[in-house]
């Protein structure tokens, strides 16, 4: 199989995240991503995987690769993205997150947390306080993601809120992140600063909370197929695989 360029926006929220639009439904997300010529997307709601499978199924029907993921909030209020291959038992990490997440959501304050099926039908809502912080230190989250052979990426490291550098001052030595995500807001100079200071690959994703936000920034991966192993190789620049931030 040949290597090919895949345009990917892996950080997209659905209507399950209280801060995201209720229009962020599986088919709607997939169609918008296809319209923008993205070839793969990732779904990572705050502290929950519960809508990711519906988007993956919608993607399979419509011809778009969807990676299932999660954006976990650590005890230090750092956001960490986890992405997984299709057959991964995602409830392993979900159970750990829910066990360490307290409180109930208040829809009037934080927003609705809608569960949707692969045909955009709303089938319920999640009552937990998904916007809250878990009691899990960043190291435990990264380890849990890696135990499931997933990809661990620090979210929007340039941002003042929920970014690992703003919360912890610097990236803890020995934290085995696979990459750092830089938000669409970061300038080229700022991006260069991160790659100069830290020895981690950089990626750009949109962190879309609305349909208009999808693809606002993305990264292109030269890979054989969409799977965690290939994306890891691209991040490491191994065997001709690579990643370019757009």
């Amino acid at each position, binding site marked *: 199989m040949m290597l090919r360029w895949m345009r990917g926006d892996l950080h997209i929220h659905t209507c399950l995240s209280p801060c995201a639009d209720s229009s962020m439904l599986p088919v709607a997300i997939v169609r918008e991503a296809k319209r923008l010529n993205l070839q793969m997307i990732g779904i990572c709601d705050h502290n929950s995987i519960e809508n990711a499978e519906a988007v993956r199924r919608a993607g399979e029907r419509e011809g778009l690769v969807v990676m299932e993921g999660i954006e976990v909030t650590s005890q230090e209020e750092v956001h960490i993205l986890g992405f997984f291959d299709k057959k991964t038992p995602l409830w392993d990490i979900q159970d750990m997150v829910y066990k360490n997440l307290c409180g109930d959501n208040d829809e009037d304050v934080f927003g609705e947390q809608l569960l949707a099926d692969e045909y955009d039908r709303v089938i319920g809502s999640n009552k937990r306080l998904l916007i809250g912080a878990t009691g899990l230190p960043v190291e435990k989250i990264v380890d849990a993601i890696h135990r499931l052979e997933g990809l661990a990426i620090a979210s929007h490291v340039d941002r003042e809120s929920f970014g690992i550098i*703003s*919360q912890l*001052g610097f990236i803890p030595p020995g934290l085995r992140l696979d990459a750092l995500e830089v938000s669409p807001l970061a300038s080229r100079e700022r991006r260069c600063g991160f790659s100069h200071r830290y020895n981690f690959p950089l990626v750009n994703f949109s962190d879309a909370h609305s349909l208009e936000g999808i693809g606002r920034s993305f990264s292109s991966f030269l890979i054989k197929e969409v799977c965690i192993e290939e994306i890891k190789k691209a991040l490491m620049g191994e065997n001709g695989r690579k990643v370019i931030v757009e």
Partner: protein
Amino acid sequence: MKLRELIKKFNLEIKCVANGLDRKIEGGYVSDLLSDVIANGKAGDLWVTLQLHQNIVAVASLNNLAAIVIVNGRQPEEETIEKAEKEGIPIMVSKMSAFELVGRLHSAGISGMR
């Protein structure tokens, strides 16, 4: 005021570096954003925070802070204590909230102004 006196006065639980409590406290700073402490924490400050992560030790060391007090009775991670012991940064735990502790420290003469 010396750290030792504050520990007694406010009933702080000593977590590490029990032999380093004679340092003079020059002032105080309260923040849970470590990037902010790097920017604004001054040498000799007593730092009040709820963060437990081991990076607090490196930040205190970097800015030559006198000691760290963790509030709300939260217990620091093991790695944090080990690192603090190595770096000689005393860590204490207070059962009080940050608001209450800082108010009392201020009344006791610890200032945020230099």
